[in-house]
């Protein structure tokens, strides 16, 4: 789209622009969480920090994994590993919609020329017992973000409502760069001394190998055992006399990812699926409850 005007943002340019934009709006810029997660929402900076009465504004990139979406690097739109850009503002400021629209301006979407719409879409993540009301944001008919006002997280009503923004970075970049195939995205612009780097240069082989692993080699027996071990560890940590919800939550995330791998292997029947989801939800809920209880008792600047 922006071809005729100034050069459009590279993939990393897009990320940097969003980082600067949201930093400017007072968000703490965090780095990705260092575990496999299915979505940016699952980062403890969203799931756990959206609970309790303390304000929290944060933005970060989160690599996200959905094993079942892998296509061996052959599909121009689908990836089993991709990036989400996540913003949480708690409590959501009254002008959050305007702030969001400002971020679209920042990444070079000309709102004079392009039709931005907020289309009803109520978000729900059953594995962490979270839901909220909001929209899919459309740019000329394409979904560019998910915009949600959290109402419940970990099965608990929220004290303060968080406004959550999730940008699908690859899709947004494809739009901004006018590219039809995700692997053709410019990841890094060339300089006088360094070559241009494409998304495919960085990730294509990863998609091929990870898809092969996910669909063909992941050992279901071991996965199941690891799932059960993770579940046990999580429950153990929550059952301690002084529970440890933060490490426990990491094991809940591991269990969640292991379930996704089992699912991708096609060994989960629809009925079992519901059971697994419930098991993970129970873990997440336990972590959430424990986190809220402990967080309430921690004074501000407790380390001092």
């Amino acid at each position, binding site marked *: 789209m922006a071809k005729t005007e100034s050069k459009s943002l590279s993939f990393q340019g897009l990320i940097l622009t969003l980082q600067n934009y949201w930093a400017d709006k007072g968000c703490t810029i965090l780095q990705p969480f260092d575990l496999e997660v299915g979505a940016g929402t699952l980062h403890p900076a969203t799931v756990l920090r959206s609970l309790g009465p303390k304000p929290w504004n944060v933005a970060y990139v989160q690599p996200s994994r959905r094993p079942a979406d892998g296509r061996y690097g052959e599909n121009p739109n689908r990836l089993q590993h991709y990036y989400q850009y996540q913003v949480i503002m708690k409590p959501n400021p009254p002008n959050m919609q305007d702030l969001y629209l400002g971020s679209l301006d920042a990444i070079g979407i000309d709102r004079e020329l392009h039709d931005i719409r907020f289309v*009803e879409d109520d978000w729900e993540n059953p594995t962490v017992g979270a839901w909220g009301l909001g929209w899919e944001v459309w740019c000329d*008919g394409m979904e560019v973000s998910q915009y949600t*006002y959290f109402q419940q997280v970990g099965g608990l009503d929220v004290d303060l409502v968080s406004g959550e923004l999730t940008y699908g970075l690859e899709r947004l970049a494809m739009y901004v760069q006018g590219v039809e195939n995700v692997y053709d995205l410019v990841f890094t612009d060339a300089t006088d001394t360094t070559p241009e780097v494409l998304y495919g240069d960085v990730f294509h082989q990863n998609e091929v190998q990870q898809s092969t692993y996910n669909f063909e080699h992941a050992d279901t027996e071991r996965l199941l055992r690891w799932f059960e071990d993770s579940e046990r560890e999580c429950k153990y940590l929550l059952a301690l006399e002084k529970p440890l919800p933060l490490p426990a939550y990491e094991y809940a995330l591991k269990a969640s990812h292991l379930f996704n791998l089992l699912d991708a292997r096609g060994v989960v029947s629809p009925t079992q699926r519901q059971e697994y989801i419930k098991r993970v939800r129970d873990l997440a809920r336990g972590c959430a409850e424990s986190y809220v209880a402990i967080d309430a008792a921690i004074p501000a600047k407790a380390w001092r």
Partner: protein
Amino acid sequence: MTEFLFEIFCEEIPARMQKRAAEDLRKLLIEGLSKSGLSIDNAHHWAGPRRIGFKADIPAKSPDISDERKGPRVGAPEQALAGFMKAAGLSDISEAMIKDDKKGQFYVAKIEKRGRASADIIKDIIPEVMNSFPWPKSMKSGSTTFRWVRPLQSMICLLDGEVIPVEAGGITAGDSTEGHRQHGRGPFTIKSFADYKKQLEGKGHVLLDMADRKAKIAADAKALCEKAGLELVADEGLLNEVAGLAEWPVVILGDMDPAFLELPGEVIRLSMRDHQKYFAVRDPKTGSLAPNFIVVANQIAPDGGKAISAGNSRVLSARLADARFFQSEDAKSKLEDYYDKLDTVVFHKKLGSIKDKAERVAALARELASKTRADANKAEQAAKLAKCDLVTQTVIEFTSLQGQIGRLMYEREGGDKDIAIAIEDHYRPQGPSDTVPSNPVAVAVALADKIDTLVGFWAIDERPTGSKDPYALRRAALGLVRIILDNELRLDLSKTLLKAWAVMEMENLADGETGRLSDAAISGDEQSAIENLVSFIIDRLKVHLREQGVRHDLIDAVFALGEDDLVAIVNRVEALQAFLDTDDGENLLAGYKRAANILKAEGKKGDLPSGDPHKGSQAEETALFEALSQARPKIDKALESEDYSKAMSALAILRDPIDSFFDGVMVNSDDEKERGNRLRLLQSIHDTAGQIANFDSVEG
């Protein structure tokens, strides 16, 4: 009269909720205002993506009310007086008047209620309305506990141009609002409704009324299509939705790669409609879809909408490319190759997989084929193929195309024509307005499918209760009824259902090992379950006939005979209705009722006395017996050949003899023998008529 104007401005309201929200707002405000004694004129409400509003003319204050309150008698105990004074707001009893009535003197307090300023009334009403607004789904926002559909931004509340600073959700109402996000940011300061409408629809670029937005979209789309030599595929539901997604709708014609037109038209239309909210466009010459679409944007772009059109076109292409990918993936296997995969889809936990169901339906369709004059092999084959498309990627993506995709695949494979039709039509009728299958193979499969569903859920005791019918069993039963009637299928319903039950048990045994349909799953006793199901189906038939204007008492009269051949039942009901509309019928009914009443009275005393109906002592008795003897064989014969109107005209012969009988003969004769003979004669008439219908149930 003063003008009251109220606007609620918030973040985007879901399109489907807007109309109802404005109606609720109107209703709640009018209720509140009139309860406070205010009259309302020229009320008007409006709804759009970011605002709902109401305006009306109301008086500046509510009327003064003067009322009298009757108190205790003069000289009543102190306590009674005190209570009265308190209730009437008097500080001394001397403030009350004294009135006379027959019993003596009593106190009367005059209560003057001054009218309230309308502004004060509004101040009370609005927070109440806002705090308990009936949104289908609402949310909290920020740190407030106030619930609204999406975050509330501002309110206008004006009475006669003056701001009433009502509060809700932490927002205080004022006199300003915003217009279109791109074209009319405002703020606009508002003085009156006329001013509001003028500013918003002018500089503000907001078409306030849903109807105006719809009309603009429809007219612009039509004009745009005509200019391009195309024709819009009208879609009222979609029009309603897109009119709720744009404050300033601008219609744009987009195009797509014509190569996509190879996809089934429904796939294209659904991709456009459900995912993208585009209208399809067709070529008026050929009537088939054109490689274009109509998208309704929310703004006038400086490039004339080129970028918007191109962007939308890209998204549609990606969707259609997906659909094409699914289709080509699906086409790599033949339809029948998907059969085994049906085992991975659960139909119901206790009733096995879709494959288990297909097996049962196939066995049953085979049995039913002779009834529908279909080839048994074809029926069986069609039943197995009918569900195969459920596991194709295309149907997983476009669920509503189930059946259609299977048919298309099968036709492309060069499969049998009847089977192809059956694959699509076996789901019919899907609702009261859907057509009923007529191809014999399709009829056999449709019937078998619905019977299997009903019998299955009855077997595991998952029957509809009250308003709860999660498996749409009422719809299935009504579909069954319509298929049987429209195709005039002669089925003994109970026997057919028992057959389906037997099939289910057999499959159950075969599948016993897998534990899918355990013996325990089939609960209760078979006979009573089937009886219950038959009466459930008959109830659907009753509803169906009633909707067609058939008298319910006639339906009852025929149902009372206990028949369960639906076609025969309907024929009989129709003949009965026609018969009773005649003079003969009406009179005969009167005679029958008289006979029945006498027999009923007699029945209360004990057994009917014995007697010989043919040994009548009066001419009228013999004549009636003669007529009955003549009518009987005719009736039997007519009933045997199911010619119900003939049976009824045979019965009509009895009209005159019955009339004469009751005119000339005293049933309650002193002679016991005579009395017995006459009662027996009436009994014979009662029985004969009872073969045709239970006339006791007929009103008249």
